[in-house]
Every structure is written in C-alpha cells, then in structure tokens.
C-alpha cells in the first residue's frame, strides 16, 4: 500500500458509518478500474459543464450605464454608509424629487449602501477598481484625505450659484474641514455636536452632584466631571466612571480629540506641518487623562470593556444620535455640553460630508444633484435624521424631529448653541499613517503608571515628522 499525503482512505473510514470494518472502503476506490473510470468521467463532465457555466456567466455583463456625453439623462450613484430604512426613505424621496424636476439631466439616483465598518476601504476599492460612485458620503476624519488628496472636486460655484441655495445660511465653521484655499469640496450634511451622556442614577447612587446643577452653576468642568466619575467607579467594581466616546487606547485621535481642545492643545499646527504633541497644553492634557486612569480611577483602564447602554458607565462622550439607544436603557439620563477645561469651553462637532468624486464619469450631473441634495428644502428633510449646518434649520422644532427624547433644554444648550460655535476634530491628509505611528508610543504610555510622557511624545513627533507636510 502506498502512503498518502492526504489520507483519503482514513478520511473515508472516519466518516463512514461502519467504523470497524476496513472493507467499507468502496470497491471503486481500491480496485475496480472500470467503475472508477466511469465515476471519474462523470465527474469530469460535470466539472466541464460547471466551468463552462462559470465562463459564460463571467463573459456576460450588465449593459454599461449611460455616460455623461450630452446624449441623454444619466444615472447617478451615491455611496453611503447607512442602511437605516428611515434614512433611505428620506434619501430616496430627495432623489425622486430631483429626477422629477430634472429628468433631462438625470433619470435615476441610486443610494448605494456600503458596509459601515469597512466603508472607506470599500469605497476606495471601488474607486481603485474603476467603479467609482459619482458622489460619496465621507466621515469627517477622512475629510483631509479626500479633499487634499484630490478625491473630491471643487463645488464652490455650483453651490453658491444654485437657485434658492442661500449659501450664506450655512455655518461657516462647519465648512472649514471640507475646504481648501477657500474652495468648498464637500458639504457637511450631518453636523452634530459632541456632548456628555450622564447616567443620573449611578451618579446619584454614588453621592455625586447632578451634572445639570453643575452646568447651571457654572461649575461644569472636566475636573468636576472626573471627581464625580471617580465616585461612580469606586462605588462598584462592575462600573466605570467615564469613557471617551471611542476607545482612546485603540484610537487616540478619535477618542481624545474632543477633549484636548478644552486644554488649548492640538496635535499639530493648523496647516498640518508641525507636531504639537510635545506642547505644554498637550502634555498637561495627557498627564491629566493618565491620572484619571491610574490615580483617581475615573476612566476605564486599557483593555477594560464597559457599556453605557447597559448601565455600567457614569459619563460618556457621545453624539445626539446616541440618545435613541440610551433612552431604552432604563435609567435616568441627561445630555450635556462638553465641560470646560483649563482653556475654557471649546465645542466640538462631528460631521459627515458629501462630495462629488473626481473619478466619476458624470461630474457635472453629480455637482448639480449635490446642490439640490444640500439646498434648504432637502436640508429640512434630512434634518429628520441629520442635524444640518444651516442657521435657519438649527431650531428646537427641527431638532425635536431628530431626537424627540431630548428636552428643549438639552437641544438648545447642548445642540444648537454648540453646533453654531463648534469646530471639528483636527484631521490630516496622512491621518492614518500619523495615528498608527503615534499609537505605537502611546501603547507604551497607557499601561504604565510611571511612563515618561515627554520622552514618548518627542519620539512620536520624530516618527511623524515626514508625514506632516
């Protein structure tokens, strides 16, 4: 008997019903060449048939959608990261209304949902594969990559000259991250301020003051929040006092970028050319945050998992959209503005923008649709789900539609006031490379109670020097 690399006979025996009888191996496998040949020939024919089928299927193709050559209306595809039925209903209604009004330009607008957790990767893969959508939603963190990298086209004139657009109604600060040299490359269709969700039941049980009282008394500071959070954490080992919105040990920029502006800190200069991680405000901020992990215990330690919606967290940074889940959690809660830090108040907004991709083959039609999609009428429809960066739409009545669970007090104080004054988190064209390189050094900082922060930040700045251009 020859010895097999792949033990076919043993596998047959293992999975056959009669385990003990070696003769259960079928004759055709061992001896009968005629029968074996017949079986193999049948398999061969089946393989050939399957291959032919696959080949034919591969050769067939859907007819190419019409291109923008002036010969007729085109179809537009918009890449989005939401599969929410309510969102899609509103988006499609805007698309249908546009086609009805401009059937000579566009015959269909398709909103194409890509997986949210791998959205940018999927979008880039489509673009790299020559299947670029015509327009795309993009997270604010990727804004500089898309704007500075040339992925979006300039839409300034299209928006400013569109009939009834009221460009001056758009909050100027909201456009900043989507601009380059005063030219607008995308529109922030969602403009939502970050705030603090507070589990009032946990805070009260731990003996802390009501956060809104602190706010009303002008004492709503990170220091007071940390004191209260430490009390919550100390009250039960299954609780944590405070969590940044995104795990700061995984994503330091996303997790902490809403906080250090209140210390007057920034990771790099406005023009993105000089590292500021070694600046005193930044060192002060990281030192304070480290203290909350290792000394006061206010913030969860690296690697610990807690869930605000399960009632395990006293305070957590979040966006307006988080109110739906938290309202179902079964505890009393509040939504407050970001606290003041040593450098005072500094509201931060989270954004998503929509722009026309430079790889689209229907740029002019896409730009025209963008102006329709972001005009005041469409904005009013979108504001059911996405807070708009238009002064005329930043009203309690409008935002009540976004989250009916928020009180007027929360909407006016935490949303409207913050949205009209807030800035976005700082981004960069080479954000991914920069964050990865800095994270390597912070990985060494977080677990160690006695790490030399200044030395680590010096190394981090040296590592990202080439990427800051």
């Amino acid at each position, binding site marked *: 008997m020859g010895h097999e690399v792949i033990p076919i*006979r043993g596998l047959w025996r293992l999975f056959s019903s009669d385990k003990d009888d070696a003769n259960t191996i079928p004759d055709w496998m061992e001896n009968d060449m005629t029968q074996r040949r017949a079986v193999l020939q049948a398999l061969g024919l089946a393989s*050939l048939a399957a291959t032919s089928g696959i080949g034919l299927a591969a050769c067939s193709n859907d007819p190419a959608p019409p291109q923008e050559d002036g010969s007729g209306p085109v179809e537009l595809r918009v890449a989005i990261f939401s599969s929410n039925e309510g969102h899609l209903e509103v988006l499609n209604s805007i698309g249908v209304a546009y086609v009805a009004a401009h059937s000579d330009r566009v015959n269909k607008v398709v909103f194409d949902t890509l997986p949210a957790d791998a959205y940018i990767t999927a979008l880039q893969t489509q673009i790299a594969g020559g299947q670029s959508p015509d327009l795309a939603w993009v997270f604010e963190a990727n804004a500089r990559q898309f704007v500075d990298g040339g992925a979006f086209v300039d839409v300034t004139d299209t928006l400013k000259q569109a009939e009834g657009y009221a460009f001056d109604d758009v909050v100027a600060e909201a456009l900043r991250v989507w601009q380059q040299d005063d030219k607008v490359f995308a529109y922030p269709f969602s403009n939502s301020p970050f705030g603090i969700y507070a589990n009032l039941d946990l805070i009260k049980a731990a003996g802390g003051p009501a956060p809104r009282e602190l706010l009303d008394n002008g004492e709503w500071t990170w220091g007071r929040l940390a004191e209260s959070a430490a009390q919550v954490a100390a009250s039960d080992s299954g609780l944590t006092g405070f969590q940044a919105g995104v795990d700061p040990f995984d994503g330091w920029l996303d997790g902490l970028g809403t906080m250090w502006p209140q210390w007057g800190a920034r990771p790099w200069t406005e023009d993105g050319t000089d590292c500021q991680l070694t600046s005193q405000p930044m060192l002060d901020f990281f030192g304070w945050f480290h203290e909350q992990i290792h000394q006061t215990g206010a913030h969860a330690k690296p690697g610990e998992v807690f869930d605000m919606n399960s009632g395990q967290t006293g305070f957590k940074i979040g966006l307006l959209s988080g109110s739906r889940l938290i309202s179902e959690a079964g505890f009393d809660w509040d939504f407050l503005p970001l606290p003041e830090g040593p450098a005072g108040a500094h509201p931060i907004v989270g954004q998503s923008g929509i722009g026309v991709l430079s790889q689209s083959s229907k740029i002019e039609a896409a730009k025209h649709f963008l102006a329709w999609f972001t005009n005041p009428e469409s904005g009013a429809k979108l504001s059911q789900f996405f807070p708009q960066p238009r002064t005329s739409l930043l009203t309690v009545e409008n935002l009540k539609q976004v989250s009916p669970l928020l009180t007027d007090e929360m909407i006016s104080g935490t949303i409207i006031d913050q949205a009209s004054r807030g800035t976005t988190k700082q981004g960069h064209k080479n954000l991914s490379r920069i964050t990865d390189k800095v994270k390597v050094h912070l990985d060494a900082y977080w677990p160690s109670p006695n790490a030399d922060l200044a030395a680590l930040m010096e190394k981090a700045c040296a590592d990202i020097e080439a990427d800051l251009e």
Partner: protein
Amino acid sequence: MKSTTIDKFTGAAMAAPMVLGIGAFGLVPFLMVVWYSLHEWNPLAGTFDFSGVANYLRMFTDPQIPTSVGATLGFAGLLMVLNIPLAMLLANLLNTGLKGITAFRVIYFAPVVVSSVAWVVVWSYLLAANGGINAVLAAIGIDGPNWLMDRRTALPTVVVVQVIKGVGMNMILFLAALQGIPNELKEAAALDGASRRRVWQHVILPLMTPTILLVMILTMIGGLDTFVPVMVLTQGGPEGTTTVLPYLVYRTTFQDLEFGYGSALGVMMFVLVLGLTAIQWVARRKWVHDEV
C-alpha cells in the same frame, strides 16, 4: 495501463475548474499585484505613476518591516509549536472505538466551522482586562494579565485563540492518517515483541509522516497569512508587537492609501511564504517516510 484519449479528456475536464479558478482568481491577480508594486498608486487622486523598484528599496529603510516580519515568523512558529503536537495528542486520544467518542471528535472539530470573525469577537470579550477569563482567575485569587494590551502577552494570546480555532482540522487529518494505518502492521510489530511505545515510534509515526508534512505546511501557511484575529483583537498593537505582514499590507494599502507600496509588501510576503514552504518541501526527504 495505457491511458486513452477519453482518459486524458476526463483528466483535463476535472482539472479545468481548478486551473481556471487559480488562473482567474490567483495567478492573474498576483501578476497584477506585481505590476502595481512597480507604481505609486493613489486611487483617490487617480494617480498611477511608474516608480520601478522604489517600493522594494523602501522596505530596506522602513522601520516597520523588521518588527512585522518578526511578529509574522513568531506568530507562525508559535502556532506550529502549539497546534501540531496538540492535534497529534487529540488524534491519538480520539483514535479509539469507545462509545460516544464521535461526540468528542465533533466538539474538538466544531470551532473549525465557526465563522472566524464571530469566533474572535467572542474571544475579545473573554480576553478583556475585566473579561470572563480574568474573572475566573480572580475567583481563584489570581490577578490575570491584560491579555491583549500587554506587549508580553498579546501575540501568544492571539496565537492561542487561533490554535483553539484550528486544531480540530489538523486533528481530523491526523486521525484519518491513524485510521489509514493497517492493523496488520501494528499486530506484526506487537508479535515481534515491540512495546506500545516502540510500535508508535517505529511503525505508526513513520507512516504518518506524509500527513505530518501536509499539516506542517498548511499550518505554517495559515500562520503566515493570519489576518482576522489581529484585525479584531489587537489592530497590530500593543507597540506593533502583533503587526503581522498581512495586517501591515492591509493597513498600508487600504488605510494609508499606498497601493503601490502595499502591493510590494504583498509580493514580499508571497516570497517569504514560498521560501519557507520550499524549505519544508526540500527537507521532507530527510524525514518523510517513502521519500527519497
């Protein structure tokens, strides 16, 4: 026996799907990756400029490469060291005709058919600093480590998660090899006075060496190609200790948008896997039964 035309046709027809599949989904994409690796390509900006071997030269000065290659070899090596002996042990323990033994075979094999992402997500909760495993350790008075955030434990922890996931497949292959060994050989050795240990050492083990070779090659390639557990559990951290090459290729290509350099890293990974596999293949002559 002389093969006939119809036999040749049958052989070609059976091979056709695999040949076409490998060609269309393996060879052609690989050649395209080699072509991309000779370019600076930013799909967002629509730039695709020939750069020669610049991407390959860059690897020699990229400080991520030594760390990543070390992590990759460490991962694959540790995976083989833990997985193969454990699979062999389980296969020998389960190679009996005892009633109910099939249930144990199913239990050990079950993780193989579980979705990789689902498997790793569950482990991410178990391995959290305040997760299930440390809770069990705390109950018996042990202060468990921060499994995924400590540079000393992160890589071995991810390897163990992979071992538990994949050991069932190797176990089945070893079990099948054991079942394929004729009883007559074992009985003849026993009649000649060989002890059970000597039968195992001089009869069973040599006859299993072809399967051991297969398992070693498959496990090594699986270890060198590991991506999902790193992506979900550690994202390459802490301090880059789990940034294995497949994850570095993904990050460079799809996050940093350096498609050209990412492709060059992919080619380098291919060469590494090919080289290590070739070494195993050549070395088989020294220890695999019936190989000359």
